[in-house]
């Protein structure tokens, strides 16, 4: 098979699964699940085959979609290293999570729909990843948004789930508007949307500097929305209302990573754009610390992971913003493994115990799930950046990139963030695995799905991802070669403080939560104001509500005036005019048949008279 066929298979096999599940097999949920898993398997196989055959295949396959004003808009597949890598990650993680879902979603009334939506999501995401054209990419980018909307709102009977889905959709849309404007500006500047062509230095050089900066900023808006960066990050924790495997899928390797991936895709553009990287770095560092601090005080395991995701995505952007494509993509890869692993572990506990609360989990004997607990520890260590696990290497390369390029403030910020990361990660681990009876139990709250024992089909993906989380760190050189970027090998001098900081975080966590008879009270609780601030997520939701509410009522009052005065007036005028005209013409409709016939004949006569040329 040619790589074009393979790419087609890879991207569209899930669509078949989606249709099969949503249209044909609604009444046969098991068959729907099997179909989707098979489709995902085919996708993964195709993605690997593309990778295997990439040396002797053209990197781009394109066919013309439409041509407008001399600008060809094509549909096609761009099969360079970054895309190949991302495609494999997406397919692999999606497959793992689908297999996991077999057990996790068992007995849910929407079983077939669940897998169908998974297929839809995988189709959109893979198509986005392989897109050769920016417009095509945007189309699938939005489809990814749609699929995640559907997945987050999977339990739409639950008002909070529906609201969360809506919030995710709207928030990402805000970024997308910016992205779309940037896309149009890019098109008008270069007359092409072909990604490979756009990324050539000569093309970028042809764009005026100011404009390039503007474009980069607008595109970054999309990244901020999709990857849940400050200030558009609030949707992601709420998106935990979806089933846990969905969270694993959306918030580890795929949906949120799409933003980072886009940034990586347009790395040359961001590098070329003057001053943008500083903005990126500022936003990333703010996000990283912000999310980490909030994660410190959360008790809902999924929320901890959610804020952790935001924080880690910010790390990736730090690496990319520092100019190292390698660091960002590397961290993206490792994060995909260990974050998916952590989510799946959390899902396993939730499934077994029936609560999202870490304290409850610990009390109910979460530690008894050996395999899951092992996965949790390894994933947490990887997240915390302990050597020699995956997160360590990628985080080191990010720090190295920061060292190499920029002001120390960012480096210290990153140190702080990684300390916090280690701290909240192991706080989570100790809370779950070394329960103490001193904590207060919260009100019961859990996901509305049937609970039960952790099945083999759930354990298998956890095992696979555990291996991945442990080993992915050693693939750095390979990835660098694949994406054609320079690998960063941090010096021991650079590594030492990072390891030390991470260990410090772990030790603090141990003393507060892990040792015997620990108070299980974070040091932050002693500073009440900060605790409340973190607990309330910096009041950002409230501020947004107020700002948005005020804005909306301002717009509303203005539009009310406009509507009553101008629009209604125009409408009334049009209506009255129509009625008046109608009344006037209705008089002609006398109902006198003979009048009609007579006028018709008269008209014919007049017509004949003039046309006949008498």
């Amino acid at each position, binding site marked *: 098979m040619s790589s074009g066929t393979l790419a087609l298979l890879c991207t569209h096999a899930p669509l078949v699964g989606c249709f099969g599940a949503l249209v044909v097999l609604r009444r046969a949920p098991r068959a729907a699940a099997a179909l989707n898993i098979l489709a995902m398997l085919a996708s993964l196989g195709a993605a690997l085959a593309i990778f295997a055959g990439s040396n002797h295949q053209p990197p781009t396959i394109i066919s013309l979609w439409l041509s407008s004003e001399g600008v060809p808009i094509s549909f096609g597949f761009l099969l360079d290293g970054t895309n190949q890598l991302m495609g494999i990650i997406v397919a692999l993680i999606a497959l793992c999570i689908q297999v996991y879902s077999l057990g996790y979603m068992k007995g849910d009334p929407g079983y077939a729909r669940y897998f169908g939506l998974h297929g839809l999501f995988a189709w959109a995401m893979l198509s986005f990843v392989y897109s050769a054209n920016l417009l095509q990419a945007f189309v699938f980018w939005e489809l990814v948004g749609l699929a995640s909307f559907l997945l987050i709102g999977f339990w739409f009977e639950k008002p909070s789930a529906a609201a969360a889905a809506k919030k995710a959709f709207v928030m990402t849309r805000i970024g997308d508007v910016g992205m779309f404007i940037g896309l149009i500006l890019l098109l008008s500047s270069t007359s092409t949307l072909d990604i490979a062509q756009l990324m050539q230095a000569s093309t970028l050089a042809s764009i005026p500097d100011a404009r390039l900066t503007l474009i980069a900023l607008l595109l970054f808006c999309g990244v901020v929305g999709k990857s849940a960066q400050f200030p558009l990050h609030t949707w992601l924790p709420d998106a935990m209302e979806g089933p846990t495997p969905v969270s694993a899928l959306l918030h580890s390797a795929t949906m949120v990573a799409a933003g980072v991936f886009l940034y990586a895709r347009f790395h040359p553009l961001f590098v070329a754009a003057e001053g943008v990287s500083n903005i990126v770095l500022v936003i990333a560092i703010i996000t990283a610390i912000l999310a980490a601090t909030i994660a410190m005080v959360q008790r809902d395991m999924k929320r901890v992971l959610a804020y952790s995701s935001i924080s880690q995505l910010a790390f990736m952007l730090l690496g990319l913003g520092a100019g190292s494509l390698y660091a960002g993509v590397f961290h993206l890869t490792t994060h995909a493994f260990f974050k998916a692993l952590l989510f799946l572990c959390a899902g396993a506990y939730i499934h077994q115990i029936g609560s999202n609360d870490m304290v409850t989990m610990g009390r109910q004997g979460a530690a008894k799930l050996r395999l899951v607990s092992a996965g949790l520890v390894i994933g947490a260590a990887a997240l915390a950046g302990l050597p020699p696990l995956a997160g360590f290497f990628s985080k080191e390369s990010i720090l190295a990139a920061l060292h190499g390029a920029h002001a120390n403030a960012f480096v210290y910020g990153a140190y702080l963030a990684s300390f916090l990361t280690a701290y909240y990660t192991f706080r989570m681990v100790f809370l779950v695995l070394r329960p103490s009876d001193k904590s207060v139990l919260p009100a019961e709250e859990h996901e509305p799905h049937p609970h039960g024992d952790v099945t083999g089909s759930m354990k298998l993906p956890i095992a696979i991802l555990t291996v991945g989380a442990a080993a992915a760190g050693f693939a750095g050189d390979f990835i660098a070669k694949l994406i054609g970027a320079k690998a960063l090998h941090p010096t021991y001098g650079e590594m030492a403080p990072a390891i030390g900081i991470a260990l410090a975080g772990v030790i603090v966590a141990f003393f507060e939560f892990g040792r015997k008879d620990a108070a299980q009270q974070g040091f932050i609780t002693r500073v009440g104001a900060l605790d409340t601030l973190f607990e309330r997520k910096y009041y950002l939701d409230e501020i947004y509500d107020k700002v948005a509410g005020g804005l909306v009522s301002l717009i509303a009052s203005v539009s009310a005036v406009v509507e009553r005065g101008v629009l209604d007036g125009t409408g009334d005028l049009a209506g009255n005019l129509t009625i008046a005209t109608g009344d006037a013409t209705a008089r002609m409709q006398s109902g006198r048949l003979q009048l009609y016939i007579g006028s018709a004949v008269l008209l014919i*006569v007049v017509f004949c*008279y003039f046309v006949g040329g008498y």
Partner: protein
Amino acid sequence: MDAVHPSAWAFVVVALGGALLSVSLRNILHAIFGLALALFGIAGLFLYLGSPFVAAMEVLIYVGGISVAMVFAVMLAYSLGKKEGGSTRRFLAVVPVGGFFGVVGYALLRASFAVTSKTGSWDLKLVGRKLLLDYNVVFEALSVVLLLAIVGAIIIARRDEKTGDDKTADEKAASKGNDAASAEERAS
């Protein structure tokens, strides 16, 4: 070019006279008889134009069929009492009619036709053959139209089942006379 025998003018007089009567008479029934006269005259013209068959058909269907049906309809839907159109209406009608007559007549007089002497076969067999071979689709279509017209006429003219009579067929046939009688009563 061989002109038609001048005695055809007699039929022209009959046709136009009948038409005038049918247009001008106030009593609608008289107008129908005027129409019958006009149609008879037109049939005569057909005879002079060389087609006795069409003339016979004209008499058979128009005079013997359509006129009679009209008279029947008048008897069932009798309303002679209404005033006919006033002078305003007549005057208004004269404008398009006169205009039409003028324009077409002028065109007629100015036009020149490639008139030849009586040619071709007027054999009735040829008409029949053409009707059933060349024009058989039209012929069949027309027969379908006629059938539909009959069915449609029955459906339209049938009294509403809900409001109307639930008489048997025999009673209906017998009541025909009563209808006519009541029509008669209204007339007097």
